[in-house]
């Protein structure tokens, strides 16, 4: 008997008891359920929740692998045990096994903790409520390890995941009902709870926190906010050979993943494009007024060329994977443009003007998540009004 049938038998055997949702959860998690609509369903699509989720996870895999190499590379670079990767994207200094081993050892535990704890909570709630387990956590579980600093203690991550899934999602009714993006809720919780582990110049490179010999590794945004020189070239920013949260560094790979999501029609190109536009507009605006701000502490970030804002920090990652979250984003076409544009605008605004939060993308997206239903409400209301007016003109 295959596992699928076995699970189905178990489910039937325990029908009506508390254990039923558990087996049901496992069953639907791994396979198509045995009970599917046989007649009378008029719409059939391949795009179920599971497929959508799997596509996003698939898009994240190259980024995860890259991040493992980058973790090792940054680690050895800070210790002076490897040379700068200067010869293009396929530089052997970057893509070597030693780098990968260090990265694998530090990042796999993050991925495992994220999935085990998060799915544990999901299964618990599925049992409590007596419904099928929802696939929503598949993507969140992969996003979470990619947006935290490498050396975040695992117990902190576990607590944050429990908080994010319960308060960010389950209290609203589970997958599809949440107001805030769960992955960002988890990051925001960590950010406000344990600021020493989430910002500063020690946390971005593996192994630096325990060292006391003064080696530091700021992110580019961190250096700019403190008025220091940036030690990285534009190419390195684009390839992602820079310190930062685990998976957000490589703009190149995120761009490819974004194209993949657009091609498979899972990510909304409108949101991605308008977010980029918003950031560019704000960047241009700051570039324009920067000369008059010379000497202030905002000058360095203001005078950063507007297009470079797209390459640094978590902007690219947030745009492709967070802003486009279909649950928390706006649903109307016009709304998507407004929503994305404001995220871009707000991200750069927070970046430049708030020295306490060197990266504004997280807060910008969370803020717009809150406003997304309002934007939709206004647009739908306007449309209804317009059509009512049309009806009036016709009848009179």
């Amino acid at each position: 008997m295959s596992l699928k049938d076995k699970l189905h038998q178990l489910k039937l055997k325990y029908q009506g008891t508390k254990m039923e949702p558990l087996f049901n959860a496992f069953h639907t998690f791994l396979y198509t359920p045995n009970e599917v609509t046989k007649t009378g369903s008029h719409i059939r699509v391949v795009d179920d929740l599971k497929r959508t989720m799997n596509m996003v996870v698939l898009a994240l895999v190259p980024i995860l692998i890259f991040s493992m190499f980058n973790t090792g590379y940054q680690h050895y670079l800070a210790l002076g045990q490897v040379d700068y990767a200067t010869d293009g994207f396929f530089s052997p200094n970057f893509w070597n096994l030693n780098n990968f081993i260090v990265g694998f050892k530090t990042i796999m535990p993050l991925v495992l903790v994220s999935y085990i704890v998060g799915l544990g909570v999901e299964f618990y709630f599925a049992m409590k409520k007596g419904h099928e387990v929802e696939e929503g956590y598949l993507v969140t579980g992969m996003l979470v390890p990619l947006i935290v600093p490498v050396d975040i203690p695992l117990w902190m991550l576990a607590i944050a995941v429990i908080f994010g899934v319960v308060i960010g999602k389950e209290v609203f009714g589970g997958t599809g009902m949440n107001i805030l993006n769960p992955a960002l809720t988890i990051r925001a919780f960590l950010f406000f709870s344990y600021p020493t582990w989430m910002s500063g110049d020690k946390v971005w490179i593996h192994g630096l926190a325990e060292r006391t010999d003064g080696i530091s590794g700021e992110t580019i945004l961190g250096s700019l906010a403190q008025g220091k020189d940036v030690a990285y070239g534009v190419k390195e920013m684009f390839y992602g050979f820079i310190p930062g949260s685990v998976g957000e560094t490589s703009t190149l790979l995120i761009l490819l993943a974004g194209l993949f999501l657009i091609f498979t029609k899972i990510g909304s190109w409108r949101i991605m494009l308008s977010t980029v536009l918003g950031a560019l507009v704000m960047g241009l605006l700051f570039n324009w007024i920067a000369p008059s701000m010379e000497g202030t502490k905002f000058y360095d970030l203001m005078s950063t060329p507007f297009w470079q804002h797209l390459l640094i920090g978590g902007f690219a990652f947030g745009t492709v994977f967070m802003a486009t979250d279909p649950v928390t984003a706006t649903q109307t076409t016009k709304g998507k443009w407004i929503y994305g544009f404001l995220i871009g605008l707000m991200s750069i605004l927070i970046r430049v003007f708030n020295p306490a939060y060197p990266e504004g993308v997280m807060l910008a997206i969370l803020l717009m998540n809150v406003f997304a239903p309002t934007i939709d409400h206004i647009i739908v209301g306007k449309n209804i009004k317009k059509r009512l007016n049309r009806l009036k003109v016709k009848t009179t």
Partner: protein
Amino acid sequence: MGLLSKKDAALIKDPLFDNNPITVQVLGICSALAITAKLEAAIVMAISVLFVLSLGNVIISLMRNIIPSKIRIIVQLVVAAALVIVVDLVLKAYAYNLSKTLSVFVGLIITNCIIMGRFEAFALANSPWKSFLDGIGNSLGYGVILIIVAFFRELLGTGALMGHQILGDPVKKTGLYALGYENNGFMLLAPMALIVLGIVIWVQRSKNPKLIEENK
């Protein structure tokens, strides 16, 4: 409670559980968020409200037949304000540091919805003894929630209770901190007070399904 009749006992018991001013009526949230970062402050606040509400209820109830209904709100405000000033001055005289921690929130007891709510809804229509019990009950209900929230916020936010470090020393890394535990800074911020309060409400309603509103 042999001392009280069943009806009188209900006046105290109801607001403690099934009709709690904070978790069920959702009144007085502002101060519940503002002064619950420390257990000590929460306890003092609870006692202050106990004093103002029970005494104020008695005073209003005594005057209930002579207050013209057109100006009753202003009379209630004057009574509440007078009592709050007494509390404020006593705190300043005998617990200066605490009164500094509580800052404006002692003064803001005047605007606490529970106070005006009870004056208006209960004391104006009931005898002084009943109003007194009602005041005690409601301020106890308020205080209990305040203390629960403050307990978790202080314990998880600073590792201390009533100012004593009970989880070890976070600077010298003793106790739990030697294992890598760290205080949760988010607990000290107001949003987390709201979330803790939400969880308290969640627990209470899951224990007592009567409180769950029907979805319309």
